[in-house]
């Protein structure tokens, strides 16, 4: 654990990529193999199950820190991170212990089944044998909030350097549902990686956005200049669903979401078509709700995403289908290095033979001969229930991760309204102790009705100025939330809008975010609730 806590601290102490890679390599070379696998699991988002719920951890920490509960809460709002707050508030001890990361995680996994009293004794005794940095890292693992400011790419780069394997190979081998207890470092870096895990997905290839704002659109001439001849590109609609990889191997099927979550059971409608695929097939596509051959808006799909049990009603009201757009494995062979055109041909072949063409659909190819023509067609995206257009270079292989060059997403303008900030709350992490989370309202007659919360989109300098405004214009405080004098106007962008019975305004937005600070607008000129209703 010492080494792991030090790793975390060292990574925190530099902003330089090369230095981070050096630190990661040093860590890999200095710890036992089982620790390496646990570290990789944590750094790739595979957290142990939370053995003690956060409110118990809090309660015990408050007792041990010997401060009133309200002061603990206020401290938490200053720090913005529970694990760190606890580490800062617990009595200091300058001890350490020699347990490895593997040993600690084994304890964390084992304690879940014990009585509350045993868990408390274990936790307080554990805290007592750690210094502040160890406590912090331990708390992060324990409370399931483990995130690290290092991209998976850097970790893999360090691993590639010490193992002499390609980064893409390692990325692939770290995908799927492996567990650090059973997947050994030896297996991970073996020269010939046997495909021992039949569920393992390929890393997704992600498109880069074509950057534009509502004021600055890309002209056909600019597209020609940056992308070249239109004939080299394949265009499809950009579907607004759940990106998924679907696997059929050795008679078994697996559905992976982009967040590397195994979602097979969430989409029973897809099982018949997947079972009908030949063994050794992997498809990439988008899951959407469909009704009488038409895709439905994302909001319908959203109603079933969070559900544990899919009721008959839900399955009837929002049945899903797949719009497939790529094939990564065919007849048991990894075909990612084939060209877009070749993979598309295989995909079409597979689709031709499916007995379930209503569920296994193809993402239609948009015919176009010039950028002019495609720009024109893009304006129809919303009518197609699409978010814009995807551009794929016909000669390109299927790559790993977000890569510039061969896949581009060209979204249509987001929807937007001008709104007034009325509440503010402190942020977390990098934004702790700064008012960065805002609630926005639009006019309903002479009243302001809140309709969205948003916290991204401002520059650090703007955040600082808004923070200052909030501190000087607070009307009321409710716990961490401040009611602010309505004055500042922001343009709020969003991806979708739906009716909602849960919100006062009667609407709910999808992905609301701050597009810009409208310093030019007085609050009276903000939009009204009618404007929003008109977008429904």
């Amino acid at each position: 654990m010492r080494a792991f806590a030090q790793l975390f601290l060292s990574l925190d102490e530099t902003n330089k990529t090369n230095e981070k890679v050096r630190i990661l390599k040093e860590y890999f070379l200095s710890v036992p193999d089982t620790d390496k696998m646990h570290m990789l699991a944590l750094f790739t988002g595979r957290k142990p199950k939370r053995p003690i719920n956060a409110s118990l951890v809090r309660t015990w920490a408050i007792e041990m820190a010997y401060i009133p509960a309200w002061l603990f809460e206020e401290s938490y709002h200053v720090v913005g991170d529970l694990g760190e707050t606890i580490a800062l508030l617990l009595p200091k001890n300058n001890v350490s212990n020699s347990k490895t990361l593997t040993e600690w995680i084994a304890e964390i996994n084992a304690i879940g089944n014990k009585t509350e009293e045993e868990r408390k004794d274990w936790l307080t005794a554990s805290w007592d044998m750690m210094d502040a940095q160890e406590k912090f890292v331990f708390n992060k693992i324990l409370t399931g909030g483990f995130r690290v400011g290092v991209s998976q790419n850097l970790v893999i780069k360090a691993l590639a350097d010490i193992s002499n394997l390609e980064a893409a190979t390692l990325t692939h081998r770290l995908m799927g549902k492996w567990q650090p207890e059973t997947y050994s470092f030896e297996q991970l870096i073996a020269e010939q990686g046997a495909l021992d895990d039949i569920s393992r997905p390929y890393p997704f290839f992600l498109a880069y956005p074509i950057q534009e704002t509502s004021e600055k659109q890309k002209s056909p001439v600019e597209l020609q200049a940056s992308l070249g001849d239109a004939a080299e590109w394949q265009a499809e609609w950009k579907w607004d669903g759940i990106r998924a990889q679907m696997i059929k191997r050795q008679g078994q099927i697996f559905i992976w979401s982009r967040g590397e979550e195994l979602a097979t059971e969430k989409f029973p409608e897809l099982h018949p078509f997947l079972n009908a695929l030949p063994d050794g097939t992997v498809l990439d596509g988008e899951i959407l709700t469909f009704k009488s051959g038409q895709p439905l808006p994302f909001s319908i799909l959203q109603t079933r995403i969070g559900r544990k049990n899919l009721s008959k009603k839900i399955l009837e009201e929002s049945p899903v289908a797949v719009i497939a757009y790529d094939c990564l494995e065919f007849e048991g062979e990894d075909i990612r290095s084939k060209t877009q055109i070749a993979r598309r041909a295989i995909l079409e072949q597979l689709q031709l033979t499916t007995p379930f063409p209503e569920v296994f659909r193809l993402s239609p190819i948009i015919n176009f001969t010039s950028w002019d023509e495609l720009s024109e067609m893009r304006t129809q995206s919303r009518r197609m229930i699409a978010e814009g257009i995807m551009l794929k270079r016909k000669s390109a292989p299927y790559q790993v991760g977000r890569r510039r060059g061969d896949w581009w997403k060209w979204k249509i303008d987001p929807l937007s309204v001008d709104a007034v900030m009325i509440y503010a709350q402190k942020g977390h992490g990098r934004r702790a102790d700064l008012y960065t989370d805002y609630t926005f309202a639009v006019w309903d007659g002479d009243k302001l009705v809140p309709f969205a919360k948003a916290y991204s989109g401002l520059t650090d300098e703007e955040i600082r100025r808004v923070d200052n405004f909030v501190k000087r214009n607070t009307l009321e405080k409710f716990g961490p939330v401040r009611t602010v004098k309505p004055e500042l106007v922001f343009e709020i962008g969003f991806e979708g809008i739906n009716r909602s019975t849960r919100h006062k305004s009667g609407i709910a937005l999808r992905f609301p975010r701050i597009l810009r600070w409208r310093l030019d607008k007085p609050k009276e000129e903000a939009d009204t609730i009618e404007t929003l209703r008109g977008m429904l």
Partner: protein
Amino acid sequence: MAKKNLLEFTDRGIYCAQGNFYIDPWLPVDYAVITHAHSDHARIGNKRYLAHHYSAQVLRYRLGEIQLQTVEYGETVTKNGVSISLFPAGHVIGSAQVRLSYQGEVWVVSGDYKVADDGISTPFEPVHCHHFISECTFGMPVYKWKPQAEVFAEMNNWWRHNRANGLATVIVGYSLGKAQRILQNLDLSTGKVYTHGVIENTNEALRRNGIQLNPTERITPLTSKDEVRKGIILAPPSAVGTPWMRRFGPYDFGYCSGWMSIRGAKKRRAADRGFVLSDHADWDGLLSAINATGCETVYLTHGYTASFSRYLSEIGFDAREVYTLFGGEEDAPTQAPPEGEAFEVLPLYNGEDLGGAS
């Protein structure tokens, strides 16, 4: 009519009507007692100033020609029956707590202070009083400082490490206080200390005042970049990211502040290294200082005033929040005035770094 308090909080600053003077006023007045030379406490435009002897040259450097009377710690000046004396606050060189006594009642205004001895400022001395006016910049229990020897050991190691790896080293701290504290604790066997002009001006003012500081070299357009890169560069926060600083790259830059104890604040600064080093008292320091005064009433002027006054009330003090314009550094967590009190909000001083320490 209730007896008027010896000190009142007005829109010009903390005021003593009996003696007709202000302490650290933020609007021009006839007579200002100054706790220390940071810009949120010592402002321009007052007719007469009273401060500690060690602040004289820095005040003149920052405020120009002023009518200034200086005193030693413990020396008494009387104004219309009110005895005024200064006691060490341990915040920066020359910083003072102001003790006022009139007809047996004693008030102390802390200005900014820290309890731990930094080896260069005269160490904090608790003063018995009835009413204590305290800062609480770091008045939350998450702020607990390590002994400075540990911090400077880390800093000196970091400098050596950079030097061995061909990186220049830039250390950032406020020009009055932090800069000298760092300077006196660097391991000069590693290399020379180069200073930004703003810091060197302050150093010169302090040296004119008879303060012994380690040798420094002012960076001028003629200074050799290669030589500077072998030493350590002391720079004020206003220099971060400027072309002045960038020309010494590639470098690693460290930031010294109490805020660095929170990961989020550290990341926001985007410093390569954050050193937790503050010239303010931490949570335990504030509590011990307040306890040591034996006071009945505590007034909290700046920092986490709302939470800290609530906590003090719960442990048995008569604690009150007052609204002042101290703590004007850009990232200080100022809190809004309590409801019902109508204060006109004045713009904060927002200039170069002549600023307060954090």
